[in-house]
């Protein structure tokens, strides 16, 4: 579609600069969706609930031809769970998410926020209910999932108001969330995952045990992946500013990369093993690109019959 703000949408840093999370999410999603035929998100029940007017994104095979014959209008059949897909976006606002680095224009939190807004818009536009959970040292905001169009603005506002906080044991937060969310739904976690990998996998497994579908977006900055430092420097802990360590990166680089990659491998394999989705997000990439890649991958999986 013709989009006067396409350049804005392509630049993740515009989010931080203008705060127009909502607009940005629309632009991103509409740009992405124009290239996709249908939403990869759908409920996982077959129990018919009601008819609903056909809209873009609905599969043609779900059109109730019988109802069309009667009313000369397109209706699709809605199933019990499809109408009630409830997604929870869990946005990590701990201190480490405040890291921006020099290679990306925005911090990890800002980047994750943009992605969360885009996903929210995508799902709400499909009439799925989206809720939001933000936390730093504890759960800060919990907005229950709704699918009303005005709900999107509420989510965006809440996300915009989220600021980085202190240190978070992510696993603890996820455990408490698993206990609090009663109805099964889709839990989308946006975090850098900087916690003990085993604890985090256990917490995610707890969510899976509660029959939630789990989607883990691990947001990392390019510097964290490459550790491109050479000169000795004082590294100050973003989650605990009083914790500063003098390090010679040249001496520690190999150890760091080994540990970092091992952590990611354990996390990724643990998530995949529990039949959940893991997706690595680099803050240097655009939201459109990430969304497109992810949706394409998920669609491919959907077509091949693997359901989450």
């Amino acid at each position: 579609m013709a989009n006067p703000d396409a350049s804005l949408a392509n630049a993740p840093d515009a989010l931080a600069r203008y705060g127009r999370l909502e607009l940005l999410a629309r632009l991103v999603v509409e740009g992405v969706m124009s290239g996709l035929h249908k939403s990869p998100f759908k409920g996982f029940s077959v129990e018919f609930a009601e008819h609903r007017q056909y809209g873009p994104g609905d599969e043609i095979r779900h059109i109730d031809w019988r109802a069309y014959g009667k009313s000369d209008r397109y209706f699709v059949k809605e199933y019990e769970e499809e109408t009630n897909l409830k997604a929870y976006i869990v946005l990590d606002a701990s201190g480490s998410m405040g890291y921006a680095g020099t290679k990306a224009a925005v911090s990890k939190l800002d980047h994750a926020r943009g992605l969360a807004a885009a996903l929210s818009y995508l799902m709400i536009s499909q009439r799925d209910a989206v809720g939001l959970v933000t936390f730093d040292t504890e759960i800060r905001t919990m907005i229950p999932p709704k699918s009303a169009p005005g709900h999107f603005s509420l989510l965006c506002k809440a996300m915009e108001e989220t600021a980085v906080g202190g240190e978070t044991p992510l696993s603890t937060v996820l455990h408490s969330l698993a206990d609090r969310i009663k109805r099964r739904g889709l839990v989308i976690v946006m975090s850098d995952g900087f916690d003990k990998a085993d604890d985090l996998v256990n917490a995610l497994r707890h969510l899976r045990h509660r029959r939630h579908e789990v989607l883990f977006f691990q947001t990392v900055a390019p510097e964290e992946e490459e550790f491109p430092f050479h000169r000795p420097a004082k590294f100050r802990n973003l989650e605990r500013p009083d914790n500063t360590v003098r390090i010679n990166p040249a001496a520690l680089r190999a150890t760091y990369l080994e540990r970092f990659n091992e952590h990611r491998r354990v996390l990724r394999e643990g998530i995949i093993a529990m039949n959940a989705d893991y997706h690595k997000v680099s803050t240097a990439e655009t939201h459109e690109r990430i969304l497109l890649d992810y949706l394409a991958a998920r669609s491919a999986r959907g077509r091949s019959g693997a359901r989450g």
Partner: protein
Amino acid sequence: MTWGILNVAMLAGLAGISLPVVIHLLSRRRDPVLDWGAMQFLEMGPWSRRRVNLADILLMLARMAMLGLVALALSRPFWKPKDAGAGAISGSEAGARRDVVLIVDGSASMGRRIGESTPRDRAIAWAKTYVNGLKPGDSVAVLVAKDSVKALVDPPSFDRVKLEAALAKVPAARGSSDLSAAVGEAFRILEKSGNPSRDVILLTDNQRVAWRPGEPARWALLRDLRARLPIAPRLWALDFSKPQGPAGPTVETAPNGSVTSLELSRGMVVPGLPLNVTATVSNAGPGPLTRPIELLIDGQTAPGTGQVVGPIPPGGQSSVTFRVTLDEPGGHLLTARLAPADDPMPSDDEASRPVDVAAALPALLVDGEPGLEPLSGETDFLRAALAPTGDDSPQVKATVVSAKGFTSESIKGQKVVVLANVDQLTPEMASTLDAFVSSGGGLLIAPGDRTEAKFAGEAAWLPATLGATKGDPAKRQTVAHPAPRTFTGPVVGPLGQGDTPALVEADFFSYHMLSPRDKASVIARLDTGDPWIVERPHGRGRVVMIASALDAEAGTLPVNPDFVPLMHELILHLGAGTSASPSVRPGEPITFDLAGVKVPAETTLSLLIPDGTTIRVPTIQSGESTRVKHADTSEPGVYRLTRPNPPGGFAYALVSSDPREGDPTPLEPAEAAKLSEGWPLAFESDPAKLPTLIAKGGGSPRHEVWRGLIFAALGGLCLEVWMTRRMARTRGLA
């Protein structure tokens, strides 16, 4: 085993060891602060951290060791076996490489011929053999000790061909020498040389004068200088005064005569006026000396001046006086020369002295009481005596002015001013005369009956204060005569000689009482005992005051037969000034003032220097005259400048050497022992023994370890590179 350091200053480089630590500390202070999220991957266990730190510390230690080894190598440490003796570093080591300074005595006595050779020839032959016998890596500097030190090879050279060429160029033995100054220069050279062993070898004829044993302070200073050198050299004094080997005589047979001085009777020489030249001839022995002597004018024998001097006993001296008349104005050179004979040291057989013959001496006669009739004025007799009417080329160009016409303008261009019976001077004129005398002019004051007691106030140049007048000119009664036996000095002294000097006949009817002032001297008195003529130097000039007037009223002096010679001598004496130094010492600059000569800018004139070479010297224009200044006067003797005007004329300057050079007395063993006290100065009469002595004095060889240190530093560099690469590889940087 003994250790030592050759180049202590380089040890300062050890401070460089701290460089890696300083760089580490500085960079630590400037460490940037990075905010970081993924801290969990940076936290290390204590063992890992210790291992990383240990590797870093080892790398830093390797770098520090490398810098330390290089600094240590540059300081050139050495060791030698225990029997070499501990303590100060000795300057002479057998087997070690050496820096040697050869000092060749260049004084005239080195040219004293005994048999077929001179000490100079023998010293140079020995030096050539010695240089050829040195090892590769040994370096040699060559100095010639004269009145000032001349460096032939400086800095020390390893090039044998260059050294041989330099030794062949040792100048002829002339003038005197100062060995202590040459030793000081040798120390300066050795201060910067690099070999671990150092020697100063003096090649002399052991003449006492050159060693200056009477100046212990100079030698104490040299001992102090030597002690401050990084490696103190040993000193060897070799005596070449006697030929080595059985052949030839070993002592002189003929007496050594020398002309030690040449004195002129008058500082001011004018054309046509006879001049007495007195030569002093000394005999240094052995045996009595009888030799013909002659006077040369501008290098040409003056006819009829040949005389025979002697017999002079050994150690004695005698004077010979020549009477000459120089007719041509300009620069002339007078030389007294002993006739050639079997003299062992011919270089001191002559003495020279430059003289400037002035065309005519300009004199201003100030008449305080001009007369209307002939010979009635104050200065009439004086003018007639100095510049007789009809003489086309008088020796004095006299100008007469009245006291009223006496202004600072009239003084310009004059050499002598005569104040005859002048009543009083204005303060301006008194100060003008002060400046005139200070700059070399002469002033003759003859007070008369008009002269007031305070005619010149308290002028600083006055030789005497005027007292009361004795006698009355009107009565024409004699109150005093000159007393010739009291005449002293070169001016009036000769006029007082003889049985009946003419001046004793002069009658004075009146005269002034003179009270000589400070620095003034009475050169003639009256028979009453009162001063008659008082002289006082002032600045570069002189003032003479005579107690009586110069006219016929005050007495009969003007008609005395000796009035004319007295006035001539006084005026010429005053015209010569006091600054006419006949010669300069070697090293002092000589100046030629060519009055009335104007040359275009940047003109150069040719100057013949005593060693026979001719150089071009620049001219300096100053007003109406041209000045030539020449600073390099290390060679004693006559310097001859070719004048641009008149063509073919010359100007002469004399650089005189120490007259004691003619004294061949050798250094006494006791004096030599005193000079050797407190430092390793060894006197050796047999130069052939020197290499053996040096080897004996040196002790066991010294071993330098800088090569090993440099290799160790290179090893350290390799270790550092290997450690750096290994760390980079293990830490994922390579």
